[in-house]
């Protein structure tokens, strides 16, 4: 089973036509990989589908715009993958509740 990072890196490579070997856990999706907001929507769609979650892009963007978070917290890939793992875990916990 591939890691979250491997899956996300593959999604980014395929969605944005970026060489897979240039994508590292420390890559910043915007600053290093040059992914713009529209391309990131495609990536978010693919991540949502692959992991069965809903990336809260609007909330993240608002936090960055309000100065409550930095883009690094959400768009450096290792941090993005941590968020994805948290969302997957929260979804699993929610699905298990009451069963």
């Amino acid at each position, binding site marked *: 089973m591939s890691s979250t990072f491997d899956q996300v890196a593959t999604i980014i490579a395929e969605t944005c036509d970026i060489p897979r070997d240039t994508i590292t856990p420390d890559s910043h999706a915007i600053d290093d990989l040059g992914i713009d907001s*529209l391309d990131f929507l495609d990536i*978010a769609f693919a991540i*949502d589908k692959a992991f069965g979650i*809903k*990336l*809260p*892009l*609007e909330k993240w963007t608002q936090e960055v715009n309000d100065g409550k978070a930095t883009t690094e917290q959400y768009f450096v890939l290792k941090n993005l993958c941590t968020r994805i793992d948290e969302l997957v875990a929260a979804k699993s916990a929610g699905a298990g509740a009451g069963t």
Partner: protein
Amino acid sequence: MHLDYFQLIDRILDLNMDEKTIAVEAQVPKESTIFEGHFPGYPIMPGVLLIETMAQASGWLVLSLLKFERMPFLAAVKEAKMRGFVRPGEVLTVEAKLVHEGSGYAITDARIKVGSKLRCNSTIMLTHVPFPDPALRGHMDAVAKRIGFPQQALLP
């Protein structure tokens, strides 16, 4: 279709909030200056206008699902296929189905039929934001009334 005003949807035929689908009707004008250039002696509806028609149908679906609280805007068109010509005067049935509801965006599969024949289809991505201007919200309310938007669909 009101081509001059880029309002391409004439009437909502069906809106299913549970299934997240919409069907609308749009009649291509019998005459338009567009057909004088596209093409002389062989008038057909431009593909970009068919794509816009699918986007507008998708927009009404998303606007409905968002309870008219946010305005959808076209962001991306994927895999658009023009499968047959659409001629002046033809009545189009435009169908759209929500396939993904993301954070600040939505994706639909849309298609246009004339009778039972599929003429084009596409996947449409729309972003949505709070209404940027009250005038736009008022305009959408007015258009909703004109095209027979089923207000009961917004009831809880």
